[in-house]
């Protein structure tokens, strides 16, 4: 009885490690497929459209609202200390350092990652991938690598757009509605936000998250059980795993970057 339990645990652990190993081998194959893709940029451009352009709207809207909420909440707290002028710093730092990369990655997982997984999973379920192999077309190069590359490229761009729109959202609420001084809002922000420490580290974060989110999305699709249930499970796993990994990595990256 107890032995059965232990055996079950061991099997799960082995399965987990095996899957992890498959994911890394898969990543290697994907990356080795990238040079071939660069010779045919039209594949990547199509995926950039699917992954990046179609995600733009949700990023713009959420970025603006997140910025507005930050402006509202920040104003309420800061006005207790008579420091409303610091609203710009607060909004900009929270967006550039944390919320920009993280929320963008979460939205990206929900909007683009799930679509990637479902698409690749369905290709596998309908045996299109095997069909390609039969025709001596490498699905890694033709299907996986362009999607991975597109995700990796569009994440930092989306995160930058998110942060910028968020700052203007905070500006709209803080300066436009609540009456914070226009000059102090910008000048304090420009005074305190460091190009190297804050903005560059935020961009590095978004690159890391883009890498992870794109990797998980294409791997889950490629590794899906080729049935309709398997594909739906893989899609769910993409969103869950990406969110957890991004949040965990965010803590580690923050500790490395901003913890003295």
């Amino acid at each position, binding site marked *: 009885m107890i032995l059965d339990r232990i055996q079950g645990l061991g099997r799960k652990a082995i399965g987990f490690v095996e899957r992890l190993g498959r994911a890394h081998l898969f990543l290697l194959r994907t990356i080795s497929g990238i040079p071939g893709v660069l010779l045919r940029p039209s594949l990547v*451009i199509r995926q950039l459209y699917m992954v990046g352009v179609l995600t733009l709207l949700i990023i713009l809207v959420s970025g603006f609202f997140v910025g507005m909420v930050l402006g509202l909440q920040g104003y309420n707290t800061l006005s207790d200390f008579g420091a409303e002028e610091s609203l710009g710093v607060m909004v900009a730092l929270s967006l550039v350092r944390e919320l920009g990369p993280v929320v963008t990655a979460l939205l990206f997982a929900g909007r683009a990652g799930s679509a990637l997984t479902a698409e690749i999973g369905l290709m596998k379920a309908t045996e299109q991938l095997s069909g390609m192999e039969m025709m001596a077309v490498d699905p890694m190069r033709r299907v996986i690598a362009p999607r991975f590359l597109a995700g990796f490229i569009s994440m930092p761009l989306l995160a930058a757009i998110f*942060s910028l729109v968020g700052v203007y959202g905070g500006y709209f609420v803080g300066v436009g509605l609540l009456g914070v001084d226009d000059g102090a809002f910008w000048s304090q922000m420009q005074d305190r936000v460091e190009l190297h420490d804050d903005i560059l580290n935020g961009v590095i974060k978004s690159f890391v998250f883009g890498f992870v989110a794109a990797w998980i999305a294409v791997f889950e699709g490629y590794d899906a059980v080729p049935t309709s249930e398997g594909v739906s499970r893989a899609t769910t796993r993409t969103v869950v795993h990406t969110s957890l990994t991004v949040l965990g990595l965010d803590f580690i990256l923050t500790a490395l970057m901003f913890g003295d």
Partner: protein
Amino acid sequence: MRNTRVIEIAVGIFVAAGMAALFLLAMQVSNLSNMGTGESYTITAAFENIGGLKVRSPVTVSGVRVGRVDAIDYDNNSFEAVVTLRINKAYSSFPEDTSASIFTSGLLGEQYVGLEPGGSEANLVEGDRIQLTQSALVMEQVVGQFLYSAAGRKDEGE
């Protein structure tokens, strides 16, 4: 399948918007614009106590930012903190007897180095050391001195 041309235009706009957002973040939100891209020179100043001064803290003259703190070291021989100030080349005519003090912006704000030009004919050049310095006010010391002097006055009164 949509027209390739439309897709390419959309992707082009997307990439351009992303780049523009990054650029705007750097220019509008961060301190890049007031860092001064021009050349600079360094001078040093030794302080008994720098309080909470940090690398990259501002250096100001009459409230105008002219540079940044480049490095902070401790001199083993004189037991003083040596602060290296990087000053923008545009502000290159400080007299030799300029004095440097460490101030606090606001009651609890960050600390910065304030320069006060003297009257000498010769100017400070690269690598010079400012002779007249005034340390940071450390709150505990100020409070301690106040209490001490208050107690002293009370003693005299009795």
